[in-house]
């Protein structure tokens, strides 16, 4: 099953590359550098998804004390941090040729950095507490509190004046992008979601094996 999921994910990612580089047209204003969008936007989607799952799994852990929920939250937070880091790095690479700077302290970039640091802290907290049950409880509380930052990141481009453009897809109302670009983006969204599921299931299994090895 895991191999099948891995295979489907790989096919999805390759299809996403073909859509992004072969099918989607060159953007008229930015040129080919706009193709970074097919990597940057799905990465931030996976980060939102991952931290949303941390929120739900953390609540489930506090209510039912099920270790599987704790493992899911832990695995999802780790994968979320990975994709948030990728979002920041690819955004910075995209920012240099389009904005003329690698980094600026505008609302979107600052709020996503805070999100990254908060979940990095979440992972560090888990590693610092020896008592597994106590660590899981504290992490669950932090996983719930940190999730309040997700809407702050998403709506920061509306609430403050920023250099970052407003969302092109994850917004109410009709879209402004050509259909082929939307299609390429959606294929990459699906592929990255599969990659998230693949990574999280493998990481959660590893956490179970680690817990069994520790006794």
């Amino acid at each position: 099953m895991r191999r099948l999921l891995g295979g489907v994910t790989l096919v999805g990612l390759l299809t996403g590359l073909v859509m992004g580089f072969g099918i989607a047209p060159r953007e008229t204003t930015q040129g080919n550098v706009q193709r970074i969008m097919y990597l940057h936007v799905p990465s931030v989607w996976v980060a939102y998804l991952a931290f949303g799952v941390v929120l739900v799994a953390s609540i489930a852990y506090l209510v039912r004390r099920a270790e599987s929920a704790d493992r899911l939250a832990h695995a999802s937070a780790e994968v979320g941090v990975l994709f948030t880091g990728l979002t920041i790095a690819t955004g910075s690479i995209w920012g240099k040729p389009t904005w003329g700077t690698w980094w600026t302290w505008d609302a979107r970039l600052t709020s996503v950095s805070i999100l990254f640091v908060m979940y990095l802290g979440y992972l560090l907290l888990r590693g610092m507490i020896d008592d597994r049950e106590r660590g899981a409880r504290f992490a669950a509380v932090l996983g719930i509190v940190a999730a309040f930052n997700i809407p702050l990141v998403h709506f920061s481009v509306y609430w403050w004046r920023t250099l970052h453009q407003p969302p092109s897809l994850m917004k109410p109302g009709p879209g402004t992008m050509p259909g082929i670009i939307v299609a390429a983006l959606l294929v990459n969204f699906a592929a990255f979601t599969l990659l998230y599921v693949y990574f999280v299931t493998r990481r959660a299994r590893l956490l179970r094996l680690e817990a069994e090895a520790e006794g």
Partner: protein
Amino acid sequence: MPDNWGFVLAAYGLAAVVLVAYWRFLSRREKELEDATAIRHDLRQPSPKPASERPSP
């Protein structure tokens, strides 16, 4: 605007390196833990008695 292919390659290259590194970390750690589990399982099995202690037919 120039195409800036170097930036595109940098972004995709970085993502490929990071994702493959994480995948390799998961695979390596999984193998370590599965090997350790197999060894623990073997140690729990009772060792077979020497031939001299076995009842003769």
